[in-house]
């Protein structure tokens, strides 16, 4: 093993996880302009759904994953319909929505812990194949994560650019009031946006579950890294979060080469602070 290629691969793997989280988070944030903390728990919901389907129902891998992703999406959609929509109708400020999302996050996390216990679990079915790439090792699951991130980016850019739905989403992101005046059913579109963003988060939870494992509290860590990636890359456009994620992955993994491993999170947040101070609009300014 050579250390630099391995660190590059590690950065790629970590960056891909953050990229997928950032993609989902960015989509929802750009449309609704509020910080949805519950995005994190959707990852846990996806992971535990697959856990449930494979263990309790004995489903094979691929249908489990598809179902798991759909369950996560539905969770996000229902959360919007039950909690956020009534609040938006009541003209709630973004702070109120943030607090509501925190409440939803905590509650859903606790429910998962009640049903599945807070023990750390691994999702069975991940292949043990390890590839040698340019002097470093990467497992098949980790490679899938990287592919997933790119696929997610391509899917989202196609969705936003080439479909009418995407145009409506961008319109709402520009100005919700005007979009409504123009005739777009903003609440319905926002519901679908939460569905899609939550499926992306659920996918992250599932992939991470196969790679490392799941536990009820996994959501917050993933969310925070996704948010850092979004802010560093530039909130406001899809590509920004993607770039920011890989930058974050690189800085984290190369940073601990010379510093000690326990500084990883400190480095990540340090990067965020530097960007907020000197380039608050991120790498790609909208």
């Amino acid at each position, binding site marked *: *093993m050579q*250390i630099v290629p*391995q*660190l590059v691969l590690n950065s790629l*793997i970590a960056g891909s996880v953050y990229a997928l989280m950032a993609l989902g988070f960015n989509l929802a944030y750009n449309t609704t302009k509020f910080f949805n903390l519950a995005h994190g728990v959707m990852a846990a919901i996806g992971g535990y759904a697959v856990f449930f389907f494979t263990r309790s129902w004995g489903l094979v891998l691929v249908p489990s994953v598809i179902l798991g992703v759909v369950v996560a999406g539905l969770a996000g959609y229902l959360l919007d319909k039950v909690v956020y929509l009534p609040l938006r109708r009541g003209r709630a400020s973004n702070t109120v929505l943030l607090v509501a999302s925190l409440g939803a996050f905590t509650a859903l996390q606790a429910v998962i812990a009640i049903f599945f216990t807070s023990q750390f679990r691994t999702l069975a079915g991940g292949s043990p194949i390890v590839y040698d790439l340019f002097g470093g090792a990467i497992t098949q699951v980790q490679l899938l994560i990287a592919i997933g991130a790119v696929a997610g980016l391509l899917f989202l850019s196609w969705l936003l650019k080439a479909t009418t739905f995407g145009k409506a989403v961008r319109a709402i992101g520009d100005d919700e009031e005007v979009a409504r005046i123009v005739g777009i059913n903003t609440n319905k579109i926002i519901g679908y946006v939460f569905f899609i963003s939550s499926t992306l988060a659920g996918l992250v939870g599932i992939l991470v579950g196969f790679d490392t*494992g799941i536990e009820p509290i996994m959501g917050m860590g993933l969310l925070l890294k996704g948010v850092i990636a979004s802010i560093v890359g530039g909130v406001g456009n899809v590509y920004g979060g993607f770039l920011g994620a890989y930058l974050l992955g690189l800085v*984290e993994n190369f940073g601990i080469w010379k510093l000690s*491993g326990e500084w990883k999170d400190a480095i990540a947040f340090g990067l965020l602070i530097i960007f907020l101070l000197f380039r608050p609009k991120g790498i790609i300014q909208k």
Partner: protein
Amino acid sequence: MNSTVKAIIWLAAVLIVLVAAYYFIGRPTEGEVIKVGFIGPLTGDAASYGEPERNVVQLAIEEINGAGGVKGKKLEVIYEDGKCNGKDAANAMQKLVSVDKVKVVLGGFCSSESLAAVPIAQENKVFLLSLGSSSPDLTGISTFFARTYPSDASQGAVLAEVAFNQKKWKTVAFVQEQLDYPLGIYKAFSANFEKLGGKVFKEEFPEGTTDFRSVLTKLRAAKPDAVFVDTQTPAAAERVLKQIKDLKWRPMLLISDAVSGHKETVEKNADLLEGALAAEFGVDPTNPKFDQLAKAYQVKHNTELPFQSYSQTEYDGVYMVKDAIEAVGYDAEKIAEWFRTVKDWSGASGLVTIGDDGDRDGGHVPKIIVKGKVEKLQ
């Protein structure tokens, strides 16, 4: 009604609730039952040994009560979840001391729990008996603390000696969880290993870390002779081991006794752990009390006795508390003094002697993992 009347009614309601609460909850322990407290990790990763601990303690309690109890009174345990960290253990201790008003607490189990609970025990003159904490920092920490499990000063020394002299390893890399028990093992090992002439370096990680890839990459590049996977729980060790395997790395390994004591983890990772070293507090299967414990556990829980080094000291601890109460009564100071006088007390873990520093005399024995089983090292 006007607002003054309302205010008076509210005040009265609050007073009634407070008085009732004090009366029903704050009452000291009744005469028919002797209540002792328990603090251990009942949830989270460490529950893998916290739950068996509760089971063993409960088994001992049922045996004692079935045989007539302590001085004719039934022994009862109030179980609190320490979650293997100082904050929750301190809260649990505070509750047991102030609300349940117990005089003896069996706990903590994780060293982090015990270290946090000791000051509260000292301040309130409650006796704390740990059945499994092994951090060297607990040696001589308080006259109100004792433990039936030996200090890791012994685990570190034994492993360092074997690693350097027998295995001829010159450099050892540590992957150490940031908690008191793993830190204690690291300090004991590195002090002894470096004195022998070896080199130790480490990477720490906070509890709950799931991404070890770059930390392991870094350690691998330094080409150590062996890697010590020093974690608090078997679950954390599994995560580290899996990522070592993912990197296509097969170093010589050492593991902490909390991991080697977990049969499932050792079996599942038999391939990677082949030839790995550990140091455990010895178990003597020919000891009749141990045998009785193992059989009773098998019957009650339909599974083999887990974490055998810990189970024996847990079982003994409960019986020692019974003997203490029978000898000097349910008085914390007298019980604390009694424990300091324990010499060659016969239990499932062999002959127990507790020194002036509260530590159980006795040491760890080097073990090696062969084909997924932990065996004595020759």
